[in-house]
Every structure is written in structure tokens, then in C-alpha cells.
């Protein structure tokens, strides 16, 4: 078996005038988690659909375990698991029935499919709800079942499209734990996400995608190094005051900060230290900020650093109130 589980070269997919994928090259090493990071409409889902054979590319090549997705889709389907962006489970079937039918349609013998359903329900902590229709499940339970459905065949390659979107913090952490376990057992996983933190937590390698193009492809650590691990934002309603503050901040930090109108943004690996220094200097200068926020770098910060422009507005849960964590 090759060391590269998933590979694309110059992948192009157009929807009318829109190039959802505009020459995408990716390589995912066997036994690793690969994060595809980008805002809504960047082309993440399109890439997953091409790789999982549900959408034909217009140009370029895509291979899963060395098998071309266009030339031999059936062989690819026998080797992958897909959990799409929405929990694709049947609400009228029970959790057990959902998993069993996916097993049977994946050509497992009936008994094996049933046993696998039992095993996955146990593993995903759904035993109590196993024989209840899925319409009674919470969003987090549906998501877990959906990911279980992708694992029924024990596929060597898994595609998870925004697996934690819409999950609460607890369910998200549980899912992260499961994903880490899967990879230690040898699966290769390609996941898409809008959250830098998620890619950082799970992936060994991250490709940032925007407008159908890969604009960065690196380890999460290297990406974060470029960004600073903490973002401090201080702002004034009066742009004139912010301009004076910019000079004081530059002196306190040692490098000129980013400024957009009344907003000054400082990125640092030593958040606490820098914040205290900056506030002390501002206070001495008599410039009390109107707003202050300290947060982990978001997808938007990645975009700003890579492209100089903002990502499209996305819901970012990364804002942390002042004081909780610096």
C-alpha cells in the first residue's frame, strides 16, 4: 500500500461560472488526519464530494488508496466512509436500524451488519437510545450516529465534512476524542472545518482553501506560528485616539500592530505578558480602551494573515470574554 491515502492533482469543478474547485492539489498521508480549513463556499464540501465519488470533477485527477475516483468509483466506495455536512440518518428508523441498513447496503452479511450496529451503538454511547426512532434524538446524538454510519464498513479512509458544526461543547469534545482514537487504529481521515482550533486539535496537516484554491498547506503548528497564538484586540470609537494609541502599543510590544480604523490587533505568543504591558502603557498615556477582547486566533485571522482580507463572515465560537483565558 502506498503511503499516500488520498491524492488530488489539479482538481477542477465548476458550477456554471463559479469554480468551486480551481486546481486543487492535496496529498494525505496514510494514518493521519488532514484538515481542510476554509469559510463557507470555499470548496471544502465539493472536494469531499468528488473524493467520495458522489460528484464528478470537470478536470484533474483524484485518487483514494491509488484508485481513480472517476475510473473506478465502485472500488473507491468499497474503501471509504462518508459523513456529510448534515446528519444523513433516517429519522423514522431507530439508531440500530439506521446502522444495520447501511451495513447491509455496504454488502456486509446480514448478521455481521447487525453485530456491527450493536458494536457502534455501544462505542458511540447510544445503547440506551438504540431502539428509539432517530427523530427523538438530540442533534449531538444524530451526529454521533451519522459518524457511526460512516464507520460501519470499517473503511480505511474516512471523510468527515464539518463533523462538529452545530454540536455543543461537550459533544464536540467527545467527537474529537473518537476521531483521535480512530487514527491511532490506522484510519486515514480527511475532515473539513471552519475552525482553526479544530484543525489544530486534530490534524497533522492543514490545507487552507479559499475560492476553490489551496492558499496554504502546512502543519497546524507552523500555521499558528505565523499568526501568534493569542489575538488581543483593543478599540476606540474615536479613530484619532486609536492612532495615538497605535504608537504607544508599538513601543510597548516592540513591533507595529495591525490597525483597522479604531481597532488595534496584536498577535502574540505571550498573551498575558503583552496584554499587561500594553494596558500599563496605555493607562500611563491616559488612553483607556473603549473595547477590549482577547481570543484564540480564528479562521478569519488565518485569512487576514494569508490573504490580507477577511474571510466571509462565519460564526466563530472562539471569542473568549476578557479574563477567562489569556
Amino acid at each position, binding site marked *: 500500500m502506498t503511503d499516500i491515502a488520498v491524492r488530488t492533482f489539479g482538481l477542477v469543478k465548476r458550477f456554471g461560472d463559479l469554480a468551486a474547485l480551481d486546481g486543487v492539489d492535496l496529498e494525505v498521508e496514510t494514518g493521519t488526519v488532514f484538515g481542510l480549513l476554509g469559510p463557507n463556499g470555499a470548496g471544502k464540501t465539493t472536494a469531499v464530494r468528488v473524493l467520495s465519488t*458522489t460528484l464528478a470533477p470537470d478536470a484533474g485527477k483524484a485518487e483514494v488508496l491509488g484508485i481513480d475516483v472517476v475510473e473506478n468509483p*465502485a472500488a473507491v*466506495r*468499497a474503501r471509504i466512509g462518508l459523513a456529510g455536512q448534515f*446528519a*444523513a440518518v433516517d429519522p423514522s428508523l431507530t439508531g440500530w*436500524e439506521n446502522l444495520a441498513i447501511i451495513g447491509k447496503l455496504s454488502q456486509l452479511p446480514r448478521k455481521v451488519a447487525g453485530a456491527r450496529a450493536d*458494536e457502534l451503538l455501544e462505542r458511540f454511547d447510544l445503547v440506551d437510545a438504540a431502539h428509539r426512532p432517530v427523530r427523538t434524538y438530540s442533534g449531538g446524538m444524530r451526529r454521533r450516529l451519522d459518524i457511526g454510519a460512516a464507520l460501519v464498513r*470499517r473503511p480505511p479512509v474516512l471523510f468527515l465534512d464539518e463533523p462538529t458544526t452545530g454540536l455543543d461543547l461537550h459533544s464536540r469534545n467527545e467527537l474529537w476524542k473518537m476521531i483521535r482514537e480512530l487514527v491511532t487504529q490506522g484510519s486515514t481521515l480527511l475532515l473539513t472545518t471552519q475552525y482553526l482550533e479544530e484543525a489544530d486539535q486534530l490534524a497533522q496537516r492543514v490545507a487552507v482553501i479559499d475560492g476553490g484554491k489551496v492558499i496554504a498547506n502546512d502543519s497546524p503548528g507552523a500555521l499558528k506560528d505565523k499568526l501568534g497564538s493569542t489575538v488581543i484586540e483593543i478599540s476606540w470609537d474615536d479613530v484619532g485616539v486609536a492612532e495615538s494609541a497605535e504608537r504607544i502599543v508599538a513601543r510597548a510590544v516592540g513591533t507595529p500592530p495591525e490597525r483597522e480604523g479604531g481597532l488595534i490587533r496584536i498577535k502574540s505568543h505571550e498573551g498575558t505578558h503583552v496584554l499587561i504591558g500594553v494596558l500599563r502603557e496605555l493607562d500611563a498615556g491616559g488612553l483607556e480602551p473603549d473595547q477590549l477582547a482577547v481570543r484564540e486566533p480564528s479562521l478569519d485571522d488565518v485569512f487576514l494573515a494569508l490573504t490580507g482580507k477577511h474571510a466571509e463572515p462565519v460564526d466563530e465560537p472562539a471569542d473568549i470574554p476578557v479574563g477567562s483565558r489569556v
Partner: protein
Amino acid sequence: MSLAWESATTPSEGHFLQRAKGAARDMLWVTQRNLIGLKRTPQLLVFATIQPVIFVLMFRYVFGGAINVPGIPYVDFLMPGIFVQTTVFGAMGAAIGLATDLKSGLLERFRSLPMARSAVLGGRTLADLARNSFVAALMAAVGFAVGFRIHTNALAFFAAMLLVLLFGYALCWVFAALGLAVGDPETAQAAAFPVMAPLVFASSAFVPVSSMPGWLQAFAEHQPVSVTASAVRALAIGGETATYVWQSVAWCLAIFVVSAFLAVRKYRQAA
């Protein structure tokens, strides 16, 4: 849990007979899944059973007195029309079901599985055929209860019901194509009604075509619901049989071929 890679043949590999067997098996699993869904969605069952019973009672006891059919009791004219009307309304389930599966991402998942490509549409329409058989038997029982009588013989009546089921099956493909085209259950329901209403009401299902204005008669006389209702009537209560039956079968085949082609094409593009 081990995640070791397991090998398996998919229905698209192997010998032709093996492939056909695999495809049939996949289709039955999908059929089973749809029937369980039907059983657990009471509003669908109510729609499929209570609504046609209300039509029978309404036409039999409310409108029936005002409708004059020469030669036979109105109930004997009505019931064949009801059988056909019920399958037309029931076929809408294919549109709503497939649109729901498309919207929820289930079709996308099915398309990523190593299963036969034909199983989703085949299983959906087969489940609808099973439901139609149940509903047709129920309607026959209701019909006998309100005074409907067969004037020919049991075999002819059985043939009539088979024709009704064939017609219902062909129509399921129309609504399957429609459901995949609109991709949303509410829209599917809204889009299905304008297709069904003229077919069911501008037909000989409830009233003789001769009572309609001349310009409408031309349409009402030859459209598939009327032709099939006339064929069922001929089989159940006698009269000129062959012409209507062959016309109806021809309609069924034509509807099936065209709409199955469209539905399969939509399915390939969808999700």
C-alpha cells in the same frame, strides 16, 4: 474495535447473475427501509387510507345523488374511479419521500456506498407498490361495504386491480422524477397537486365525461386516468374491455419509460 480493511465484492463487480442478485438484495433493503418509515409516520398512513375513504363516502352519499349515470348504480360507476384516484394521490408519496431523502443528505450517503445504483429508486417505487396494494385491498373492502358489486367475475376484477397497481407503479416514477427535480418535500407536495388535480378531476373517475363541456371532453376522454378508470369499469362491470385495457396498458408503459428515464437522470445528477 479493529478498523482493519475488509474486502468485499460490490454489486458492480463480478458476474452478471451475481450483480443482478446483489442489486435485487439492495433494492429489497431499501424497500424495507421505506416501508418501516411509512409504518412509523402515521400522517402518511392516514393520508393513504382515511382520505380515500372520505372520498368514497362523500361521492357515494353526498354528491352521488346529483350525478346521473345511465344504466348502472352510481356506486358501481364510482368505485373503479376511486381505485384509480387513490393510486394517483398515493403516488405523491414517492415525490415527498425522495425529496426528503435528497434534502436530508441520505441520497448522498447512499451514493457513497458500495451498493447498486438502481436500488434507491427501485426500492422506493417497490415500497409504494406494496403500499398501493394494501390501500387497493382496503378500498375494495370499503367499496363492497357501501354497495359496490362486481357484475363480471372475480378473475376479471382481479385483473382490474392489477391494472390499477400497474398504473400506480408507472405514476410513482413520474412523482419520483418530480421529487428529485424539486429537492424539497414541501415544494414537492405543492408541485405535485397541479399535476394530479386535472388528471383526477377532469376525468371519468367520478362523473361521466359526457357531462363535461365539449372542449374538455376531448382531453378528459383520452387522458390516462379516464382510460384506466374505463378499463377497470369494463373489467368489473362489463362492456367493451379490450380497447380500454390495451389503451391503459399503453399509457402505463409510455408513462413508465419516459418518467423512469427522467428520474434516473435526475438521480445521477442529484445529491
